[in-house]
């Protein structure tokens, strides 16, 4: 049924995205990139897909400048999509930007807490997380004002409500604020794709539920792993777990009680995928479970690498579905990974550390 009317509103956007997908770098491109001797060579190799955006870069640019230009391209393409979309598709695309908004707001709150000139912070904000009232945040000089008059006006206001008061902003570590917001955002997004009349029962619900569940589980696992050895209590930690996903509720409960990597492995063993990840990187992980030990597996892949790999595979599979705006999500994730890959490769080239240059994730 959904195929009948989807193209009336969303057909053009979907077509454009499928076109964008074809310009993503392939394994062949990556193997060419790894052969490069300098950043200029990398720039040349990226020419076909990024040409006009890289043209303004000076010779031998820094890797961050290169990544910045690549992000610019992603941003301009996404802006075009969001301008072309209407109705539920537009709403869906807006949801995609909320993640970046959370990062931006966390940045601004950090700046306000330390009484920095928030104007200079605006330049550091991610352009995708830009919203109309973002500059207004600069008006606020203290955290109470920020909360009462400014944050209420942002699209993220519902995520603040109920879980964070303005006292929390003062006392809590900004990371906890950020993760609380992200948790609320993921739950809201999940709710949106499952209950919105346009999406319920459509391929969008299928793929996005799966992706968001994975995202929620990944966050829960990461938060647990990264909280070992910090002052984050188990109670606080539990509040940061999104309340859906394959791990919810039994796995989440076990995660909240886990005290070391073995505990986490036990908690996720109910889900075959995650169990396979933990087996691949080795359960013991050096035994200590402290932050620094996370990534020392035998084949050079860390747990996060495996999570990224899985995410990319899922994003790639999205393109097998039709009549859904979820392809935009898949494309964005693939594009972001591509930027990370190119940054990694050019870092390796710039620092002359070729032995680990193959440590990127390519799915095409």
């Amino acid at each position, binding site marked *: 049924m959904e195929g009948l009317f989807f193209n009336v509103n969303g057909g053009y956007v979907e077509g454009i995205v499928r076109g964008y997908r074809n310009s993503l770098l392939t394994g062949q491109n990556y193997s060419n990139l790894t052969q490069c001797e300098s950043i200029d060579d990398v720039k040349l190799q990226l020419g076909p897909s990024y040409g006009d955006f890289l043209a303004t870069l000076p010779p031998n640019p820094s*890797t*961050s400048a290169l990544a910045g230009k690549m992000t610019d391209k992603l941003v301009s393409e996404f802006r075009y999509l969001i301008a072309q979309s209407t109705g539920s598709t537009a709403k869906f695309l807006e949801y995609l930007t909320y993640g970046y908004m959370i*990062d931006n707001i*966390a*940045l601004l709150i*950090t*700046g306000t*807490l*330390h009484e*920095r000139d928030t104007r200079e*912070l605006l330049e*550091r904000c*991610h352009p995708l997380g830009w919203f109309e009232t973002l500059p207004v945040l600069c008006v606020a000089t203290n955290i109470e004002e920020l909360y009462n008059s400014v944050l209420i006006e942002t699209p993220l206001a519902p995520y603040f409500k109920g879980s964070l008061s303005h006292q929390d902003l003062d006392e809590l*570590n*900004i*990371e*906890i604020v*950020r*993760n609380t917001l*992200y948790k609320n955002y993921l739950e809201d997004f999940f709710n949106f794709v499952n209950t919105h009349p346009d999406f319920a029962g459509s391929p969008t619900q299928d793929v996005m539920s799966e992706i968001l569940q994975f995202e929620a589980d*990944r*966050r829960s696992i*990461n*938060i647990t*792993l*990264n*909280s070992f*050895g*910090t*002052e*984050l209590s188990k109670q606080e930690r539990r509040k*940061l777990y999104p309340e859906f996903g394959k791990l919810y509720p039994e796995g989440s409960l076990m995660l909240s009680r886990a005290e070391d990597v073995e505990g986490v492995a036990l908690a996720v063993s109910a889900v075959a995928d995650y169990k396979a990840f933990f087996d691949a990187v080795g359960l013991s992980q050096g035994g200590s479970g*402290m*932050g*620094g*030990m*996370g*990534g020392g597996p035998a084949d050079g892949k*860390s747990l*996060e690498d495996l999570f990224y790999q899985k995410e990319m595979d899922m994003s790639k599979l999205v393109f097998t579905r039709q009549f859904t705006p979820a392809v935009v999500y898949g494309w964005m994730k693939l594009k*972001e990974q591509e930027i*990370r890959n190119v*940054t*990694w490769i050019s*870092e*390796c080239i710039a*620092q002359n*550390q070729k032995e680990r240059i193959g440590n990127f994730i390519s799915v095409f």
Partner: protein
Amino acid sequence: MSGAVGREPVFPTRQSLGLMKAKLKGAEVGHSLLKRKSEALTKRFREITRRIDEAKQKMGRVMQIAAFSLAEVSYAVGGDIGYQIQESAKQARFRVRAKNENVSGVYLPQFESYTEEGVNDFGLTGLGKGGQQIQRCRETYARAVETLVELASLQTAFLILDEVIKVVNRRVNAMRMAESTNVYEASMLSFLEQRIPSNVCNLPYRIEQDLANTYQDINSELDELDREEFYRLKKVSNKKQRDNAAADAEILAARERAAEKAAQNGTPPVAESKEPEPETTDVLGEQEDNDVIF
């Protein structure tokens, strides 16, 4: 190295001789001490140079690894976390303590790094993703900074030691012995003196040589005085002997004459005739002596 070059402006007396002797002794001891100090410092200096070389090579490696781990972080986090970390750090975790080390009288500052365990300001950064990479990156950078601190301590010691060794060597050279009997050494020194501008190897600074000169001069002058004194005494005693002999002869002659007169005129008073005669002879004798001698 002639003896007349320099000497202390003192009078050649026995007291100043003793003084000079003590000074010369002090200068010799000081010279050997300074020389030993210079050797100890040079040894230390070479060791530091070697360690700086090692530390610099190590720094190259460590900094490379550290920069790479930062690249790993940016890959895992997928964004810039620099600002957040700058803002959340309130207290220094990695601290440096300075202490002094005494190397043969030279105080070398030594920097010692230690980590304040209680301070962990960005423990929650990257909670959502990349936390492990951030922790690892932090540890790598802590090691890198450790190497830098070690290098800084070595470099400071290097600079200070360099300066001190220069000063000590200059002093040692200034004090070098005048009686450097070694012909080769002496010729080399004079050669050096020609080459080195006079303000570097200044003559007034040759303390030991001056002292030795002074000591020798005083000694020879005192000897001279001694000899003069001895000669004078000899002359005086000679003259006294002669005078005595002359006086004895006069007395004898007078007695004989008196005896003759007594024999001719009976017995005149001996004492009367004897008394005026020695006075006249003495006066005469002295005048005659003066005339004869001088």
